[in-house]
């Protein structure tokens, strides 16, 4: 009985993913009719460029949410990595070493989250609210009011320029390749299947021989790693390392995941859904910008999209149940 209910929800969730993709195409068509510049190279490039960090963090976070945990400290890990990058470079280290330090910082932070949640046994929501403040605080303690903005030209152009003469921002290949890797990891490997198994039922996964503790620590560390990578990109894209980089980004990343049909309760979600969720949010925002609609409205739109993404599947499901019940009687 329980499994049949689960099956039904996941079936519907799949439909939700497709609905989001359709909605995305609809928005693209609508936007290119109502504005002149939407489907131009420069604008598409802008949309992708703005989404770089959000998507890069959303990939591992999707796995983490599916496993039934959450990480609210992602933006702080990004900020801390960015500061470590700037700080190490300021000490006279080579840029490669600085990048390595930044990525390792992110990984370490994620690992600490994982230890606190899985080994010490604290709730991930509360812990990562704590580490959100902690990591951001370390970044502030490290750099204070300083900002580092002297980076080698080659790297800052990496964050800004396009590949050759195409419209693709140079960050896009990285975003796409990591997306493909995480997509395959999630949908085509035992690792991914274990993640879903844990999300659907921790106890049964444990009985089936999954090392839940180790698996989830891996997921936290992966989330940290990708937040570190996003920190590097963010730093070069804006060519600044400062403590309040990407403050508040965590909610945008989580919105992208949920909009893409990942269940906040775990166990359900797809990578293409998340990618289209992020693209949808980015495209709507871009459309609002092109229509010269006040920037203020964008905050409301983000909120409404997020609410819709949780409300729509639940409501549709309930209507379905009521209808089925009516048919049975």
């Amino acid at each position, binding site marked *: 009985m329980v499994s049949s209910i689960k099956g039904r929800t996941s079936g519907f969730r799949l439909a939700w993913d497709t609905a989001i993709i359709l909605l995305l195409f609809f928005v693209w068509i609508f936007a290119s009719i109502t504005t002149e510049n939407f489907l131009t190279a420069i604008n598409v490039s802008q949309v992708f460029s703005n989404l770089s960090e959000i998507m890069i963090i959303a990939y591992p976070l999707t796995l983490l949410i599916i496993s039934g945990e959450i990480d609210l400290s992602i933006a702080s890990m990004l900020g801390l990595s960015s500061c470590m990058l700037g700080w190490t470079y300021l000490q006279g280290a080579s840029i490669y070493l600085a990048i390595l330090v930044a990525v390792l910082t992110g990984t370490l932070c994620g690992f600490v989250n994982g230890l606190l949640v899985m080994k010490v046994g604290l709730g991930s929501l509360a812990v990562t609210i*704590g580490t959100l403040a902690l990591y951001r605080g370390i970044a502030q303690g490290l750099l204070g009011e300083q900002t580092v903005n002297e980076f080698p030209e080659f790297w800052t152009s990496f964050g800004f320029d396009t590949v050759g003469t195409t419209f693709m921002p140079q960050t896009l290949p990285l975003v796409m390749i990591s997306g493909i890797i995480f997509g395959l990891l999630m949908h085509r490997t035992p690792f991914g299947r274990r993640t879903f198994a844990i999300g659907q039922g921790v106890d049964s996964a444990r009985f089936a021989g999954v090392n839940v503790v180790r698996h989830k620590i891996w997921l936290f560390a992966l989330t940290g790693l990708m937040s570190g990578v996003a920190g590097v990109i963010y730093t070069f894209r804006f060519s600044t390392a400062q403590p309040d980089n990407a403050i508040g980004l965590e909610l945008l990343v989580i919105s992208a995941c949920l909009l893409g049909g990942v269940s906040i309760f775990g166990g359900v979600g797809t990578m293409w859904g998340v990618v289209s969720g992020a693209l949808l949010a980015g495209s709507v925002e871009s459309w609002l910008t092109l229509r010269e609609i006040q920037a203020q409205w964008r905050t*409301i739109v983000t*909120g409404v999209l997020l*609410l819709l993404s949780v409300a729509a599947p639940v409501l549709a499901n309930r209507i379905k149940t009521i209808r089925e019940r009516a048919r049975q009687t």
Partner: protein
Amino acid sequence: MSRFSGLLRGREFSLALILVVAIGITGTINPRFLTGDGTRDLLTATAIVALLTIGMTPIVIMRHIDLSVASTVGLTAWLLADYSAKNPGTNALTMFILGPLIGLGAGLLNGVLVAGLRLPALVVTIGTLYIIRGIAYVVSNSVDYNAQEMPQDLLELQFKTYFGLIPFTFMLVIIGVILVGWYMKYTKAGRDCYAIGSNPPAADLAGINVFRRTFVAFLFSGFMAGLGGVFYIIRFAQVDSTAFYGQELGIVAAVVIGGVAIFGGAGTPVGAAIGALLVQTIQGALAALGVAPFWKQAINGTLLIIAIYVDRVIARRSEKSLLAQRIRERA
């Protein structure tokens, strides 16, 4: 049962003890901290957060969360300032009536979504956090208000103190803590909240109206956030659309440090308010010690993690003692 409530009382007691120690240490380093001025400063600075923790406590006890309160404070504060700027004769009483009413609107929205549609509170209130802040951005149109556009009798409340020590706003917090603390402990509705937080399906089966309790808790949180908007004006006498931006997690932190279990079922408004005071005191202590203000957030985070850890240890211990008790009763 008595043992369990004894444990809870122990938690508030130990928190108060830590608070006293923190105040003592700070006082020895910086004697100004212990003077009337120092105390007033501390209480004034804590009032808004402490007020919001009272509203948040029942929600967290029921395993929900309300992240939209900071946005509601900001929107309410701006709307109130706007109203008084456009109606020059406005007095403090009107503000105290209008503020909570605006807050109730936000609470109603959250209540319908969380209690009515049974959507996860975390996601819903992140959504309403954006929406309410977005509304503040849109209606404000980048207009700010300063002291001269606000009711003077409201601003004068900033200097009003009781017994020469307790600022007006903090007095309201104390009254709120007593009322809500009593309500949570001695009324059926209050006890229902703990039952719901301990085991939601069991509470439902036991005939508790989960919908109504959840709905009212969100309404109440909105109400308090609206009142928080009035407090904001009293404290800062200056409002723009980013007022109180990003403060929501600080409130959750204070609630959790104050011993309200994030998994629900335990905690009191008294503890939560002490939690808010403790955070503020430790900040003050560190400033007195000469720690750079940049480390403030890092320390906040560490405190929160320690608090969650202590919670966990206490929960495990009480679980064990309850189990032992049951085994003894069986034997």
